[in-house]
């Protein structure tokens, strides 16, 4: 079977929805500029690109009408490149990478552009017309459970204190602020509408400043806005190719895909999704958690991230080296491409062997990708 590699990664700056610098930018434009940058930076010949796969959690409004095809037009990819929008909520653009990998191994193409986008300003979470199935809601209300509530459930189940969550959030901001300060994001961020720096990071976050916040979802709970990822506008993209193609065309290979997995769990503790997904991916890779050198674990909520870390026995020092979603932001559909691309780029930058990118998914799922150095 063909090996699959990540041969390019870029993203827009991430900014808070409704008040950041990207509120006026249409998501299709934002994604197109990021995709275009991946093409230009890697030098891939778009004549060889099979498909543009775009993850999006709420594909309606400006993100509707098979936005992938429209992004392809906007990015001037050439009419030969297909376009498909995929939705696995927060796992959407990691799913895009997985679909590309499957297609390559199926011999159904050599190169794929895998992107993700979400303007949580311009298309609200839940969409414009939330219309749940009444029968399902009555029979299984957790099918529609709010994400904040799942974080409270996980915190309770794993006995994760508010102080621990806050310490985790402070650390995320510290790492992200350091990375920003040292210019470590410069390489990955594509300026969109003149915006070239992240807008969610708060370098002055302290345990004290977080301790003063009110619970965001349950008055008796422990989860606050400070220990949750913010609503975010952003886009990310990676180039996924067969290893042979990448080498033959001299593309800048970042890492090879070793294994992938998705898994389902109970929706009311959706934040635990990465546990089983990671276990499955590790098993398929023939590795254990101890073998991992670099980990990108999406921080939907500090409570959920800590639960996964504890359950999987992960080494905190290897996780989210440049900060996670609590500090950087979490534009739902874009996050999968970001953490997969970031894990690949970090493997190369740090000169390490194995990396994991994993995230939880609303509705009760997990998704994981294991990468290795080439």
């Amino acid at each position, binding site marked *: 079977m063909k090996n699959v590699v990540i041969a390019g990664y870029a993203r827009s700056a991430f900014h808070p929805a409704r008040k950041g610098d990207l509120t006026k930018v249409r998501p299709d434009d934002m994604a197109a500029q990021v995709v275009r940058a991946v093409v230009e930076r890697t030098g891939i010949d778009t004549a060889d690109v099979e498909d543009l796969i775009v993850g999006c959690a709420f594909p309606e409004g400006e993100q509707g009408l098979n936005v992938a095809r429209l992004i392809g037009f906007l990015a001037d990819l050439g009419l030969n490149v297909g376009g498909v929008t995929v939705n696995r909520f927060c796992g959407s653009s990691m799913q895009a990478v997985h679909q590309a990998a499957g297609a390559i191994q199926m011999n159904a193409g050599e190169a794929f552009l895998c992107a993700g986008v979400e303007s949580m300003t311009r298309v609200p979470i839940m969409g*414009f017309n939330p219309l*749940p199935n009444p029968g399902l809601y009555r029979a299984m209300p957790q099918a*529609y459970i*709010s994400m904040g509530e799942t974080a409270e459930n996980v915190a309770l189940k794993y006995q994760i204190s508010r102080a621990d969550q806050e310490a985790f959030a402070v650390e995320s901001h510290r790492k992200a602020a350091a990375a920003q300060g040292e210019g470590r994001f410069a390489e990955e961020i594509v300026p969109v509408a003149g915006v070239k720096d992240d807008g969610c990071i708060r370098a002055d976050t302290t345990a004290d400043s977080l301790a003063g916040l009110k619970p965001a979802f349950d008055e008796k709970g422990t989860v606050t806005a400070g220990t949750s990822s913010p609503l975010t506008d952003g886009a990310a993209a990676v180039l996924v190719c067969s290893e042979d193609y990448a080498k033959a065309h001299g593309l800048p290979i970042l890492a090879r895909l070793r294994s992938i997995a998705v898994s389902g769990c109970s929706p009311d503790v959706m934040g635990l999704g990465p546990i089983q997904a990671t276990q499955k991916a590790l098993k398929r890779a023939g590795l254990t958690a101890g073998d991992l050198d670099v980990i990108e674990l999406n921080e939907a909520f500090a409570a959920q991230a800590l639960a996964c870390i504890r359950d999987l026995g992960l080494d905190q020092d290897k996780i989210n080296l440049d900060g996670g979603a609590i500090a950087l932001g979490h534009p739902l559909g874009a996050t999968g491409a970001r953490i997969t691309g970031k894990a690949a780029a970090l493997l190369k930058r740090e000169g390490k062997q194995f990396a994991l990118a994993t995230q939880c998914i609303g509705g009760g799922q997990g998704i994981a990708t294991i990468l290795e150095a080439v």
Partner: protein
Amino acid sequence: MTSKTETPIQKVAVIGAGVMGAGIAAHVANAGIPVVLLDIVPEGSRNRNVIAETAVQKMLKADPAPFMHKRNARLIQTGNIEDNLDLLADCDWIVEAVIERLDIKQALYRKLEEVRKPGSVVSSNTSTIPLEMLTGGLPDSFRRDFLITHFFNPPRYMRLLELVTSPQTRPDAAQAITEFCDHKLGKSVVVCKDRPGFIANRLGILWLLAGVTEARRLGLTVEEADAIIGRPFGIPKTGVFALIDLVGLDLMPHVLGSMVKALPETDAFHQIDRDLSLVEKMIAEGYTGRKGKGGFYRVNKAGGGKVKEAIDLQTGAYRPTQKPQLESLEAAKAGGAAGLLGHADKGGQYARAVMARTLAYAAALVPEAADEVAAVDEAMRLGYNWKQGPFELIDKIGTDRFVQVLKAEGIAVPALLETAAGRPFYRIEGAVREQLGSDGAYHPVRRAEGVVMLEDIKRTAKPLVKTASASLWDIGDGVACLEFTSKMNSLDPELLKGIEKSIPVVQRGFKALVIYNEGSNFSVGANLGLALFAANIAAWSQIEELVEKGQQAYQALKYAPFPVVAAPSGMALGGGCEIVLHADAVQAHAETYIGLVEPGVGLIPGWGGCKEMLARWQANPKAPKGPMPAVGKAFEIISVATVAKSAAEAQDHLFLRPTDGITMNRYRLLADAKARALALAEGYQPPEKPTFRLPGETGLVALEMAVQGFRKLGRATPHDEVVAGKLAWVLTGGPDADVTVEMSEDEVLSLERDAFNTLVRHPATLARVEHMLETGRPLRN
């Protein structure tokens, strides 16, 4: 915004970004006029505009809000007087509101002379410095363009503006400013002479001073004093002491000092006891009023408690507040101000000492500080929120009787009272209200050009329709006016009957109908007392009938063959909001506080409010498509009983349409509403009935999920969940709704009735109603 006059004032500048200056700038912005706000550069400051910028930021968070809409802040351009005087070059009016120091003001005026455009007007917001002194030594070109515009704090809410000109002031400059302040800023412009303190503060400060010193002399507690010099005289219940706490104790010695200095020795200010040693001691200790640690009243939080305390005027020590108990207060309940003034106890003595002095001083101000008694009355009504001005109070007491009181108190009888010789200061002559002049003759009290007041019309006209709660009036030019007359203009069966009876009368003889009244509030909503009474005796059929009758009356107004214009002012809540929603057009006073507050008492809007909000939001071209956005918006607004805090804000919620008019001056509301009604009358066609496509159960579930979230957060109570559930049920179209089904207004109205009639039987709803009636606050059960 409707405007009758094209103002020559297109851009304004305010110099001085203190509380007054910033507040004036905000209010100019409220009128939609761009305004430059400048202040000094503080020493060592890196941001040279920091004072003006901070002032705007602070105002955006202040409550009560200086801005009628947050977006108005964008009309203010901030800067400083060192770098940005060039910004004044295209300003038509420059308001100076800097510190009360003559040298600083004059230095600024000289700078203004270099930059301002020819013909621009400069005014000072001084409250203490005479105009003559302000312009002393300044060139004629400046004097011609200069006057005093004295605003009251807070400038958005206080309707009084005192205007002082000099003989050199260009009449057209004074007129331009008067018209701008009247039409655009909504002020009642009272012309004052160039005398210290002008009218309101000159009289007001003497009144407060007498209130403080006489209470101490006669041995009254502050609670007793405020009870006497409050409600019995139609004065706000803050009386003397609580009012001083509100405005700040430190202001008193300052203004008093300048007044005493500026006034001749024969003036009452020199004859009155001015011992403010207690006040000075309090100020020194930080008791500057509500803005400080407290004042004559304070809240003692020692030991984690919260005890309301008052100061002992003799000892200066604080003690818990006591309910005043005086025989004279009982006498006031029966006999009003006169009963109080005639009583022998210390309350009566106090009332005589304070009010006799104050009212006598008012009489001494005509013609010394004002040409007309009506100007003094207007100044005290609007500047100090007195229900009646001093001369109206004297008329109530009787001029003869009042002179006797003065004599008994040993107070000199002012010339104007001698002139009156027992005659009242006001009389009605035909349809005209006349006032006594210092020449001993009566002269008409004139309204500003273009003002139409129902009060004036009612003086001679007979109502065309009259029920216990509503009257219909002919206001001329083929327009009728429906007036609410119930207590607090609450809605009851008699009011609905008034609507029902008025419609055929208007149809027969008029082109259009205006719904308007001159109460402090347009309507506070349905009469809850009646509803609770009916519920207590289980007269459910009566309640059901009332709901249905209300719907019928409002629908009849909406589809009447003539245009209906609602002209709300003050509160328009619940059913009062719903009647506004059913009008063809609205001409609202800028200070209209409107909302569907039914959920606060455990109910939902049952007189078409749900239906109208759905219709408005689904017709909103800016909303996303699909069955939920309109439903979601209406739910969001009604479920939490949103009340817009201005007419401009009401447009955000679609309580008012973008096309509805806003009148800044309360006095001009009826004239504007009438003009609007006449404009609509030509070729009028009743509106087409809207139809609805509602999501049904799926939408209901979506809203239930949202309510669950609020419950978890502790923001919704158990009964909130019940009420919100019923509201959601109505807004999503009930059990038979589906996006494929078109629903009529009548179907939605029927859902409203069902939901209302279910909720009104709920014990938790009745508990809310009862609590609201008893305390005036919502019960969070």
